[in-house]
């Protein structure tokens, strides 16, 4: 995202925040290490007078972090972020929040396509879903209290791509991939490039509102598995979690609670509102699957590529601020 914004000469300054260091080389963007709840953000906002905050740090994968941390990051982190953006005399004019279509859940009573104004048909049972709904509530309140600020919420479908690791990508890259026996739901994906492009689009054009983001079309899960060359491991349709638990523990599959309902009923979101705003995804759902599996095949053949870049604070400081460095314009 920061790389994409750097190429835009209109952007004066980019400030990145995270708990870990950036993994891609950044030319102009500054980086600040923060704790996971963004507690120093309000100081930064005051100090730097930023006008746009892009909030991409919501955790949508419950296998990565324990439940309490998830709450800290998603709920408390967003509260701090919005508090910083909404403080009196705040310079912030735009807030972009990267949410997930997990807020719709996945149930038998769902429509085939969710539009943004539809609500989920079943109560949220998993922690990720509950926190995301809570977060979106905060953002709605924030938008109401700060009518001058452009507030954008993007609900992304399951992300697949060349680099991202999610429970779904992990499952698909392994020899066995879980399936709830007797169910072959239609699933939707969005490619990670499109995620970045979309964040960039709404940030640059200051598009307010709530949008679903997903690749075109829906693909049956069995077909996704076939494309990825993995064998389906049918889990019984009753007591699915209990049967999956030892397999998860043995490291054979990943099976977060969100995945179970998705593998039963799938999920589809309508993206026409987003395309009316002038954005179209480059990859279809199937294209995202293919992009993912091509990258995976490459990794299998040449092994894990070592990171071409590691962030080192003092070196960055040297290159950016030392008077010894001769700054030549790139285009000469």
């Amino acid at each position: 995202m920061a790389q994409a914004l750097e190429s835009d000469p209109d952007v004066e300054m980019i400030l990145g925040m995270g708990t870990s260091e950036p993994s891609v080389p950044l030319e102009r963007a500054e980086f600040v290490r923060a704790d996971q709840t963004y507690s120093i953000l309000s100081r930064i906002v005051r100090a730097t007078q930023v006008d746009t905050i892009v909030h991409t740090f919501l955790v949508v994968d419950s296998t990565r972090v324990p439940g309490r941390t998830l709450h800290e990051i998603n709920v408390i982190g967003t509260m701090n972020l919005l508090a910083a953006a909404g403080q009196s005399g705040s310079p912030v004019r735009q807030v972009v929040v990267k949410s997930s279509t997990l807020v719709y859940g996945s149930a038998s009573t769902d429509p085939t396509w969710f539009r943004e104004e539809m609500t989920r048909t079943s109560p949220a049972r998993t922690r990720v879903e509950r926190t995301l709904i809570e977060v979106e509530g905060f953002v709605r309140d924030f938008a109401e209290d700060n009518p001058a600020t452009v507030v954008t919420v993007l609900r992304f479908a399951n992300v697949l791509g060349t680099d991202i690791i999610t429970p779904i990508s992990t499952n698909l890259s392994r020899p066995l991939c879980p399936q709830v026996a007797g169910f072959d739901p239609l699933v939707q994906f969005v490619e990670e490039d499109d995620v970045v492009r979309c964040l960039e689009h709404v940030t640059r054009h200051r598009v307010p509102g709530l949008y679903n983001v997903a690749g075109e079309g829906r693909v049956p899960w069995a077909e996704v598995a076939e494309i990825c060359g993995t064998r389906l491991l049918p889990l019984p349709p009753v007591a699915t979690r209990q049967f999956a638990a030892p397999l998860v523990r043995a490291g054979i599959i990943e099976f977060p609670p969100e995945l179970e309902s998705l593998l039963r009923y799938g999920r589809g979101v309508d993206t026409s509102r987003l395309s009316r705003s002038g954005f179209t995804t480059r990859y279809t759902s199937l294209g995202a699957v293919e992009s993912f599996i091509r990258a995976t095949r490459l990794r299998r053949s040449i092994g894990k590529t070592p990171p071409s870049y590691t962030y080192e604070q003092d070196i960055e400081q040297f290159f950016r601020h030392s008077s010894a460095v001769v700054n030549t314009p790139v285009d000469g």
Partner: protein
Amino acid sequence: MSVGEEATPRIQRTALVPLPRVETTAISGTRLSDVDEWGRSEHMREIVRRFYAPIYKHWFRVEWDGLEKIPRAGGALLVANHAAAIPSDAPVIMHGIEEELGRPLYGLADFFFRTIPWVGTTWSRVGGVPAHPDNALRILRDQGQLALVFPEGTKGPSKTYADRYRLRRFGRGGFVEIAMRAGVPVIPIAVVGAEESMPILMRLPNLAKALGVPYVPVTANMLLFGPLGLALYFPTKFKLRVLDPVTFDVPPGQERYSKSRIMEEAENIRMSLQETLYDMLRDRRSVWFG
């Protein structure tokens, strides 16, 4: 030269210039199956049709009347009476329309189907869609397809043999509202023969509650053929009559329509369907031969 100038529209200074759309070639990949966005697979339909054709032709000996009233293009909502413990009318109608008119038909049915493993997936592959109003609207209006709905819902097939050919309540008239919003006609179809193909003698409500299913029937087929009776229909003669399409002179795309109007239209359709059924039964000499 002056022609060229005229053809180019002048951009007014005050007008908002639309953002240039970034033209990119979509990266779409290659499909391995032909499952569409609703879960329907024409390939699967074809297999099912081939398997079902002899049943349609020789077992039920289906006869249509007024099939020309169903449009060959554009959306229309087909409604029919619903019967038999495991409804035999839906496959007959879907097979008939697809064979005779050569266009797909999406069957809208209860969400309950989706929750049953294998059944739900198969049902979806052969053209079943959960009966959500939004789904119906997309199929009828946005895609101009045919959809089939049984307004009686499970009240139709769950009724016992004593109540045969007596239409149940037509839900809350939701099907009329959808057709109004989509701006498509409702085409009622009267089906005779389904009721006797798997008649319910009694229901086991306690067992149904325990299993969490809408109803557990005891059918004549089960008594005669044992477990085989779950799948074996009696060879009743099927006759279907397509009624005149019902159109509503209301503007489509409305958020809400008058409830009383909806109920009235739904009741009218119900009455005419009921009348047609009685009429067809008056003409029927034999359950088996029509």
